[in-house]
């Protein structure tokens, strides 16, 4: 094991589907509290990397360390319990639940009491449910969703659904948040607003964030460090300034 101080360390990971290498010998480090961008052309393997980190896919080769322990072979819910939360590129809210319940369900992970309390309904149960409600409302408030608290989540506009997914992910109390194109389909003003919120949440909850985004300007604006993926291979990594002038990146994006 490496003795680096990184919160997440993806070490020489390869994901292979049949003959296709979706991710190839990837190295990626994210430190505590860091905001890292992950960019690359369509189909470069960004979402696959998310699925790899969150345990949906297992690496064919390589290792993943989070918070000092290997998470390879762990189930997605175990990895979330360790402190990695995510959003989905194609929004996956709990469609039969209200806005409030979507977030409440994500508090399930940190429940101190289980089935017996739910059935007995004693004082401890009531207190915990009240605490959860307070926490959920607080989170909804930060992301300006309080007024939609009791709405059906499927009736929300697209942008609100994306923000709700972020709130839901935050409710699991992550140390690392993976955001998969959180600004997709938003206009520039909304995008700017969302990025400001992400920065705010990052500081407030002392999060590390890994952000997949297509819009280069958005990523350049807020990320401290950027990794560029093309055909499953990391072709560049560095500050926004360095990435902007990297020849390989320009080639990957513009083609030759």
């Amino acid at each position, binding site marked *: 094991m490496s003795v680096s101080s990184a919160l997440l360390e993806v070490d020489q990971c390869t994901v292979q589907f049949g003959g296709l290498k979706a991710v190839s010998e990837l190295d990626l480090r994210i430190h505590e509290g860091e905001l890292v961008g992950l960019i690359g052309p369509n189909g470069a393997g960004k*979402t696959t990397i998310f*699925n790899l980190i969150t345990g*949906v896919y297992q690496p064919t080769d390589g290792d993943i360390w989070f918070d000092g322990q290997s998470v390879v072979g762990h189930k997605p819910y175990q990895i979330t319990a360790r402190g990695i939360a995510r959003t*989905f590129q194609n929004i996956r809210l709990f469609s039969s639940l209200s806005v409030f319940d979507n977030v409440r369900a994500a508090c399930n992970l940190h429940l101190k009491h289980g089935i017996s309390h739910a059935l007995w309904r004693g004082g401890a149960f009531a207190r915990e449910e009240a605490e959860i409600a307070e926490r959920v409302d607080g989170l909804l408030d930060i992301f300006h969703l309080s007024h939609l608290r009791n709405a059906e989540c499927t009736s929300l506009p697209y942008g609100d659904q994306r923000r709700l997914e972020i709130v839901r992910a935050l409710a699991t109390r992550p140390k690392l948040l993976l955001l998969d194109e959180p600004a997709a389909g938003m206009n520039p003003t909304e995008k700017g607003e969302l990025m400001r919120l992400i920065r705010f949440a990052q500081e407030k909850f002392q999060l590390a964030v890994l952000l997949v985004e297509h819009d280069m300007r958005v990523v350049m604006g807020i990320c401290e460090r950027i990794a560029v993926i093309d055909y499953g291979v990391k072709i560049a990594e560095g500050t926004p300034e360095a990435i902007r002038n990297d020849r390989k990146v320009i080639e990957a994006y513009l083609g030759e």
Partner: protein
Amino acid sequence: MIQFLQQLINGLALGSIYALIALGYTMVYGVLKFINFAHGDIYMVGAFVGLYVTPWVWKVIPPGQDPSKFNWNTTAGGLVVMLISMVVCAVLGILIERLVYRPLRNRPRLTVLITAIGVSIFLENFGQYLFGADPKSFPDILPDRTIDIGDLSIFMNQIVVFVTTIVLLVALRYIVMKTRMGTAMRALSYNTTAASLMGINNDVIIAFTFGLGSALAAAAGILNAINYPSIDPLMGILPGIKAFVAAVLGGIGNLPGAVVGGLLLGVLETMVVGYISPMYRDAIAFAALIFILLFRPNGLFGKIEKEKV
């Protein structure tokens, strides 16, 4: 050894029936991705259509006097009965698809599954109302003879069942691989949207698939009734479920797989009955199903697919 061979022959005859029904499950699954629970009941309807049209057919083509001797007229009559039953069931299958399944085409699979269970229960109980709940005896529509080879006795009917199954399979393979309709069916099973973008009329193909599958089930119903000439409205439940098991064994959506699965299950079942106990005749199919779904959910020849996230 003789007993083993005898069981093997019985098993292959039974397995042919399962294979014919299994093909319908697998074809429908291929194009629509759902299990047509009512398919086993089409097999039952097939047998009853045979029962009711036989007197009419015999009026036109009088059968031979001695049922134990080969007779061209009897054979021709039997084939006509089978063809009529296949056509009637094809129409029934298409009708069910048109009336019930088509309006549900884009609904969750659970909705469609429940509907199919509904259709199945309807056919069984309406059958009881229409035909009566008591078993009916099926006429000898084919010459009935036993061929003895040493200690081994083979019923003529078993050979007929086996040969007919193979003929139908070859015909099916031709339809699926060589005709325009078959090509469209295959296209549809790969990618519904792309197929319709390429100008394939999904509705027609799906109806055709239902028709074809139902015709095969009807043939199975007739063939089985020739072997076991007692039919009743609930006769389709177990063979239906077993044929489904056969389809899963072969990897659902896989045509040759369904045939192999059917034969395998037929042999397995007769072996269990012959060597262990007839009481476990039906349990073995379920045990096989549970085993295969838990350990090789995509069938003996299938490949594992993972849900896209």
